[in-house]
């Protein structure tokens, strides 16, 4: 890894203002893109091999090419509803370099001929929303957003919308409903947003990091960008590392780097020399990997071959002192809280999984519960409109599969503990009764 693209000089003071951004050559890639033919621009995006950084990893060029041509109103929506536990990369990009995002977004909007565009930011990011809002106003004042930008004949509008605290609004169709002022319930697909998205118009939805990478693609050219990384995983990726780790934070890595290099090399491994019990490679929704998987290359295909997903690129490290039951409890609690309630397998599945993990903690579970729990996870996966349910089922399923012994031991221990307590209470009650009869 020789260079940073997304994080290039990101700590430069004042980079969030347009003057500093322009001084270092900002918006020149937009001007270059505006001189290209739309078809060529999409070919360029496709050739770069950039895959969506929000979680699904869908190639951006392909996604853009799905947008139909014609006179209807088209939209580009930037998904800045970064809510996946463990993920905080978009936050840093928005806060420190908002104009890079705006530039990438306008290039994407030009590519698909979308004149009305939105950035949907999660409600909790109040400071980041203010920074982004100010950046949009600056760009509007300089004529970078508005009518006939840079004399290209292309007119573009961009508006910032704030969410109000709902994980499900990071799901693209949930986001669209929220943007339309509804409850953020996911929609049935197809029709996909590329055909029928926001206000029923063709809509291109991309993550902050994906759009922020576009200026680099124009700068380096498709081939130059595709040369970074490994096959089918082009470019650099921001990795958010957190949990039991010495140096948590965002790191820009070339895809294909070994996971051990990220976790131990960059982030310093777990504190006090503790061992890793398990780690989530791409946010809390991805199946866990163990210390045995540390030499897996950090790219889409290698992580998938290891049985998990690159997801949003958020590594959560869990060290040997942590309890897997507690981990499952936090996971189930989160997803049952965030399930929108539209699909039964997810609404009931997340809720009952939560209750079953609660039972383990209370000491009322039996070893058979683990089989039921695993079966419930299987019944959620693939049976809902969106993947929120799957997002709980996959990590919990993997925890049960990989740490069954620990679950069983904890069930046993909590059971014994509860029985001991009950016996003590019973004995105390008997003494009382004897006292009364005497």
């Amino acid at each position, binding site marked *: 890894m020789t260079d940073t693209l997304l994080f290039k000089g990101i700590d430069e003071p004042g980079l969030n203002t347009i003057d500093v951004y322009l001084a270092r050559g900002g918006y020149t890639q937009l001007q270059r893109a505006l001189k290209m033919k739309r078809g060529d621009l999409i070919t360029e995006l496709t050739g770069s091999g950039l895959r969506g950084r929000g979680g699904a990893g869908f190639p951006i060029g392909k996604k853009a090419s799905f947008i139909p041509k014609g006179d209807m109103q088209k939209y580009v929506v930037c998904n800045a509803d970064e809510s996946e536990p463990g993920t905080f990369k978009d936050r840093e990009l928005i806060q420190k370099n908002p104009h890079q995002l705006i530039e990438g977004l306008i290039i994407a909007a030009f590519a698909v001929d979308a004149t009305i565009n939105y950035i949907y930011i999660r*409600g*909790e990011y*109040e400071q980041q929303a203010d920074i982004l809002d100010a950046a949009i106003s600056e760009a509007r004042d300089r004529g970078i957003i508005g009518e006939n930008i840079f004399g290209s004949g292309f007119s573009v509008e961009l508006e910032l919308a704030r969410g109000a*605290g709902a994980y499900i609004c990071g799901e693209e169709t949930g986001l669209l409903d929220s943007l339309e*002022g509804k409850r953020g319930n996911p929609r049935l697909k197809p029709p996909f947003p590329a055909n029928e998205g926001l206000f029923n118009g063709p809509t291109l939805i991309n993550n902050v990091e994906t759009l922020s990478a576009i200026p680099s693609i124009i700068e380096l050219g498709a081939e130059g960008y595709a040369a970074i990384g490994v096959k089918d995983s082009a470019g650099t990726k921001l990795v958010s590392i957190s949990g039991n780790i010495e140096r948590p934070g965002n790191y820009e890595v070339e895809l294909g780097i070994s996971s051990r290099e990220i976790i131990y090399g960059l982030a310093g491994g777990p504190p006090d020399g503790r061992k890793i019990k398990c780690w989530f490679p791409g946010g*809390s929704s991805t199946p866990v990997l163990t210390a045995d998987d540390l030499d897996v290359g950090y790219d889409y295909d290698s992580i998938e071959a290891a049985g998990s997903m690159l997801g949003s690129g958020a590594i959560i490290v869990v060290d040997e002192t942590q309890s897997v039951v507690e981990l499952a409890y936090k996971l189930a609690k989160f997803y049952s809280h965030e399930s929108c309630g539209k699909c039964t397998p997810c609404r009931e599945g997340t809720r009952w999984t939560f209750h079953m993990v609660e039972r383990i903690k209370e000491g009322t579970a039996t070893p058979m519960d683990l089989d039921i729990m695993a079966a419930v996870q299987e019944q959620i996966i693939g049976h809902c409109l969106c993947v929120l349910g799957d997002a709980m089922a996959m990590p919990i399923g993997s925890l049960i599969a990989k740490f069954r012994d620990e679950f069983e031991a904890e069930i046993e221990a909590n059971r014994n503990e509860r029985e001991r307590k009950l016996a003590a209470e019973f004995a105390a009650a008997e003494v009382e009764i004897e006292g009364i009869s005497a």
Partner: protein
Amino acid sequence: MADVQRHVARFTHGSRIPGWDRAADLEKEPAVVPDAATTEVPGELRAAIEDAVRRFPVGDSAFIPALYAVQAQYGWCSPEGIEQAAAVLGRTPAALTAVATFYDMFEMEPLGRKSVYVCTNISCSLVGADQLLAALEEELGEDPDVNLRGFECLGACDIAPMASVDGVYVGPIELGEVPELANQIRQGDDPLPAKQLIRRPCADPKVAEQ
């Protein structure tokens, strides 16, 4: 630990949609759009909602910014505020309430104006978020001005364990700093200025080398 983990309203069947265990009042008149001519709306609230409509002109897309405006005006999405917003938007209060109840950041009951969210999700709880929440609860739990609650992932796992004080992210918070932070929250001062996320440099060593 005191129960400060509040949940989104759920009904018996686990749904967020009321109706299954609450019988509809059939005697009640159907809701109507409040009369814009007779509903009194504070000037600031009206201006904020009208600005939202200008920014989001299509359909109901001004609902969420309108609800934010109501919450800024009254401290919560009060029935009175929703009625006023409905009058400006020309929709029924029920349409707005249905949206407000979905989102965690809209308060459906009067609570403290100062919101303090403590992230209790995976990354934060691995490094002591539950203890942080308990300590803050001890300090601020009784304060009627403070709306202290455990929250799902706030997207700041690099500064875990952390809290969002009226939108200002601070962390990593050590337990010893809790009394100081609680004082700052009570006084309305800048919370732990040295530990605010906004001042934190990028963790990537490549950035510092540039």
